[in-house]
């Protein structure tokens, strides 16, 4: 008589799933795998890359894409690009913010403060859609978390612009991008060699800019990532030690009973 035990069961289930898995693979192209510094369990963001990425965002993306859940002060907070207080003030001061109403009931404009939210390029989604050929440029605050491939996918789309394959007809204002779902995108390739002049002297290649801005977007979506990893390690080490202590206590207590545990 064959007896089932749990090991055998797990094996059966795993092999079943592994066997049927290839039957279900989707037809989309897998994004390029990048070895991001923030990917590992102890991962941290590359500070210089975050600062360069912000520059790419500000000079390229921000003309169409909003980032409404971030504040300028976030740029100086630990775990982020960590600009100095003066730099953050200067960045915030470079925009004009509409505020009010004042005591006369009038709206007025003033220079930005670190506590202000990132200024959106358009007053609302409709204006943004109308100005971009009917395709709304998505808000970038949590964009990396809102796409299945995450940072890899972002990077791949930025690098994925190509001539369309022969026979493929594209409408005006539609571009071919092999990593987009359906391979069509309404955004022209936003990056071009040297479109940004990095203030730290790094050469602004396509690859460099795509990596930097993706790193910046990954931070924007998960500004807590470094703290999360740090706290996570402490929590798990604490739990492991406690588990060992409780295990030993359990052994001691159960040794009074003639049963195996």
């Amino acid at each position, binding site marked *: *008589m064959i*007896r*089932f*035990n749990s090991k055998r*069961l797990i094996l*059966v*289930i795993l092999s*079943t*799933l592994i066997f*049927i898995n290839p*039957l*279900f693979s989707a037809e989309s192209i897998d994004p390029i795998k990048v070895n991001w510094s923030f990917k590992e*369990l102890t991962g941290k963001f590359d500070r210089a890359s975050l600062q360069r990425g912000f520059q790419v965002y500000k000079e390229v993306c921000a003309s169409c894409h909003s980032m409404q*859940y*971030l504040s300028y002060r*976030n740029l100086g907070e630990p775990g982020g690009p960590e600009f100095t207080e003066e730099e953050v003030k200067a960045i915030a001061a470079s925009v004009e913010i509409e505020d009010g109403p004042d005591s006369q009931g009038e709206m007025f404009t003033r220079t930005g403060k670190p506590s202000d939210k990132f200024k959106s390029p358009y007053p609302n989604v409709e204006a943004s859609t109308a100005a971009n050929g009917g395709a709304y440029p*998505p808000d970038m*605050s*949590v*964009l990396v*978390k*809102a*796409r*299945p491939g*995450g940072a890899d996918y972002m990077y791949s789309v930025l690098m994925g612009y190509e001539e369309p394959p022969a026979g493929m007809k594209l409408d005006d204002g539609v571009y071919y991008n092999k990593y987009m*779902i359906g391979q069509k995108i309404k955004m022209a390739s936003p990056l071009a060699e040297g479109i940004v002049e990095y203030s730290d002297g790094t050469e602004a290649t396509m690859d460099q800019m795509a990596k930097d801005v993706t790193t910046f977007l990954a931070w924007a*979506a998960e*500004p*807590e990532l470094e703290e*999360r*990893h740090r*706290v*996570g*390690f402490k*929590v*798990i080490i604490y*739990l*492991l030690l*406690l*588990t060992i202590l*409780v*295990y030993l*206590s*359990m052994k001691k*207590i*159960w040794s009074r*009973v*003639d*049963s195996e*545990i």
Partner: protein
Amino acid sequence: MSDQEYTPKSKAGKWFNDRLPLLTLGSHLTDYPTPKNLNYWWTFGGILTFCLMTQIITGIVLAMHYVAHADLAFASVEHIMRNVNFGWLIRYIHSNGASMFFLAVYIHIFRSLFYGSYKSPREVIWIIGLLIYLLMMATAFMGYVLPWGQMSFWGATVITSLFSAIPLIGESITTWLWGAYSVDNPTLNRFFSLHYLFPFLISGLVILHIWALHVPGNNNPIGIDLKKPSKDTVPFHPYITIKDAFALLLFMIIFSGFVFFSPNVLGHSDNYIPANPLVTPAHIVPEWYLLPFYAILRSVPDKLGGVILMFGSIFILFILPWLDTSKVRSAVFRPMYRYFYWIFVIDVLLLGYMGAMPAEGIYLALARIGTIYYFLHFIVVLPVLGLFEKTDPVPMSISEPVLSSGGDPALAKKDYDKI
């Protein structure tokens, strides 16, 4: 119950206990005679209590910062993630906690199925447990709607639209549930209200579940009735409490792994896109723990039929104690049932997988086979098995593995090692 009369030592304690016997209750809970052979599958009751408390505590804190309004909900969740002190931690514990809760409840349910814990005299424990499970699903579903992302909105649309399949009054019921003519702000508001209410209903049912458990006492891996207290039992404290604590800590390590190192892996990325009634996502999928039922729903070509079968797949569990005709509880002594048990486990996993796939081609075919087998298991396999299965000899007690048919005690000892 076999508790000896308890008298508090202090005068004040006695005074209080005569008026409200809380101390007697405490004494009953610590002394509660528990089978000493309970394995680690029995630790999930304690783990589930922990999950419920975690969800309630983190949920109360989240509700202090969350705004239940269609225009503000998504932004308020981002506010929690970015501006509230440790808001990201509280929210990730809450969202992953739901998944861990279901993971634990599924293990708990399948443990009951394996060891026959639903059988007489524990039918009421089983039925209260199923009511808890139903409320859990409703609570989790409504909680998933609250961030008001794309999956929230469309998931809510799909599930609430199921009620429109009811003949004649379906449309009116759906409108009544929504509080509008589509999923909208009134829907979000009432879901928030009910999402806050249901965990307290669950808490009440949990108390009844434990109360009902303490009447016959725990089942055990060999599924026999025990004399209580006896050499076969240990007091709940410290023996079971320390074992539950150990298992709970292991569970918390896995839980922490999700919370700190891949907090979004169990969710759907579309839910980080704000809800948009004008754009339907390519694939609308519920959370993983509802997938088997989603597969059953979609495997029926007729909408009403699908709804009936989906609810039927849960309600059939309520009559399970009467469908299973076998007198022997534990699968350890039921060689045939053991096979069918594992086939059933694989069937449910398969249904879950199909629920995540688009309902077409081979997926749909497999989902249909899985659905048919799901019901066959309860309607045909279990009633018939009890009549024809030749069960192995069952021991008389845990400490003395004497076989009722007078077999070789060494063999019986071997059976134990498999438990």
